[in-house]
């Protein structure tokens, strides 16, 4: 079944981005409980319900053209959002191969890949791209292989070099991050990269996650969900441009919170790359306005409770300090029934 791709909308300026009813229905709501707790919530990336975001390893949706236009905008104005350290060239090719194979298999209406030895021909009908190149020869592509394919795939990508019983962020194309800088983090070990996440380190979350990822096998990727909030459907919430979007946090009120605030969910896929033995981190971001989320009554109620009871350090880390009260107040309208009380405030 073919996926419908809209003409491009914007993730900045006039923010014309909007979700269809179908996009809202398949949105990966990230909360299985009324409270949010860190966990090593990694699971095998086995394909699930057809049409869901879990069906394919690299999900293409109606926003494909919008997101690829945004990706180009960012990379063209800030080339340092794409980094490939010299020893990561093989991993860069691995990533290109993995993504092209999957897109061509999963979305044959939009993508075709023809291979004859190392002479490849790639067709992307959504962006009207036809490219012949020699696999392994960088001179035959207009960008590094990683950047080349990242400009045609939704999501951000980090490639981690496996060595010394650890994983190092030594390559990536990151144009829509949730407030982290590849330019700064490049070269960091797994736990260093995750240093800013509060509380999780003491819980041993990253230690366990690292052990799990070191044993990843090719052909058996894993996935997990991560979430935060963003004002407006802004994809590029990088530290680099914080001076452009940071002040939006001060414009949220109890009246406009539903429209202005967006739930931002990352579906992360982690896959072993075969020639380089590196690990690919694909970070696929889904945005949905809180108002649209709340067209689902169960989601509305749960979102209210999660945000209301979120521990302060986590709320601060996710950048919601300024507008949290307004947002929780707006969400309160969906959680008026008895039982919606703060559980941990009851004496034992």
């Amino acid at each position, binding site marked *: 079944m073919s996926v419908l791709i809209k003409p491009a909308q914007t993730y900045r300026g006039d923010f014309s981005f909007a979700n269809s009813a179908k996009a809202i229905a398949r949105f990966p709501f990230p909360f299985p409980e009324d409270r949010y707790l860190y966990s090593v919530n990694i699971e095998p990336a086995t394909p699930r319900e057809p049409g869901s975001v879990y069906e394919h390893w690299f999900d293409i949706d109606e926003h494909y053209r919008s997101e690829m236009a945004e990706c180009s905008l960012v990379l063209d104005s800030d080339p340092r959002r794409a980094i490939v350290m010299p020893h990561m060239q093989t991993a860069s090719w691995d990533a290109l191969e993995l993504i092209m194979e999957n897109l061509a298999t999963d979305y044959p209406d939009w993508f075709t890949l023809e291979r004859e030895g190392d002479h490849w021909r790639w067709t992307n009908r959504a962006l009207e791209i036809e490219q012949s190149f020699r696999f392994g020869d960088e001179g035959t592509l207009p960008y590094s292989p990683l950047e080349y394919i990242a400009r045609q795939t939704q999501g951000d990508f980090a490639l981690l070099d496996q060595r010394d019983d650890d994983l190092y962020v030594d390559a990536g194309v990151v144009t829509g991050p949730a407030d982290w800088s590849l*330019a700064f983090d490049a*070269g960091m070990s797994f736990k260093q990269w995750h*240093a800013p996440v509060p509380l999780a380190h003491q819980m041993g979350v990253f230690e366990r996650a690292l052990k799990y990822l070191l044993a990843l096998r090719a052909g058996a990727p894993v996935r997990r969900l991560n979430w935060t909030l963003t004002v407006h459907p802004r994809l590029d919430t990088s530290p680099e441009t914080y001076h452009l979007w940071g002040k939006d946090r001060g414009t949220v009120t109890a009246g406009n919170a539903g429209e202005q605030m967006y739930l931002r969910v990352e579906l992360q896929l982690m896959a072993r790359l075969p020639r380089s033995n590196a690990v690919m981190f694909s970070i696929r971001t889904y945005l949905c306005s809180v108002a649209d989320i709340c067209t689902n009554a169960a989601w509305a109620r749960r979102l209210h409770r999660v945000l209301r009871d979120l521990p302060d350090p986590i709320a601060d880390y996710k950048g919601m300090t300024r507008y949290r009260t307004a947002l929780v107040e707006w969400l309160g309208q969906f959680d008026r029934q008895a039982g919606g009380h703060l559980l941990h405030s009851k004496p034992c």
Partner: protein
Amino acid sequence: MTQALLQRPIEPLHSAPRYAELAPFEAAHFHLLVVQHRAIEAAANFIAELEKQPREAHVLCLGTVSPLAVKATFCANEADLADALLRVLAASTAGTRLYLAGDEAFIWRIQRAARNAGLLREQIAAMAIHGARSVFCVHCMSTHDYEAGDEVTCSTCRVRLGVRGHFSERLGAWLGVCADADQPYAEPTS
């Protein structure tokens, strides 16, 4: 109101470097100490320990000449020091241990050069003294040395940066992000 936006006082995160008193690694085949002149006093005990080691020890010092118990080379500037370091390392073996003493910015510049020359992270020990530390401005991507403080003004682009507790060993610098999105270029109050 602006105060409420600022990052809490820097609490070093997991990525922050940890320094310790220097002690000679007994099994090393060659001990190399690289030190800023003003850290020599702090490293005095360590230099005395080096002198007692059975294996060869060498000190590369950035600064003016003063007699040391161990064979030493004195360099007038950091460029000369970097050259001397590469020369010494090129002639050494994998059993070398490197010790660094100086301010944080100095330590990480030297460490980068040593890692590029083939030393493992585990072969390097460092002791930091108070002084300049580096901050990376994420907006213009420049790295500069600054005196300690929770906020600095980027020397290149003049944005007022909040210094975060996140550290990059590759850059040898702390992460600096615009401290107040409502007023990126505010002048310092002090």
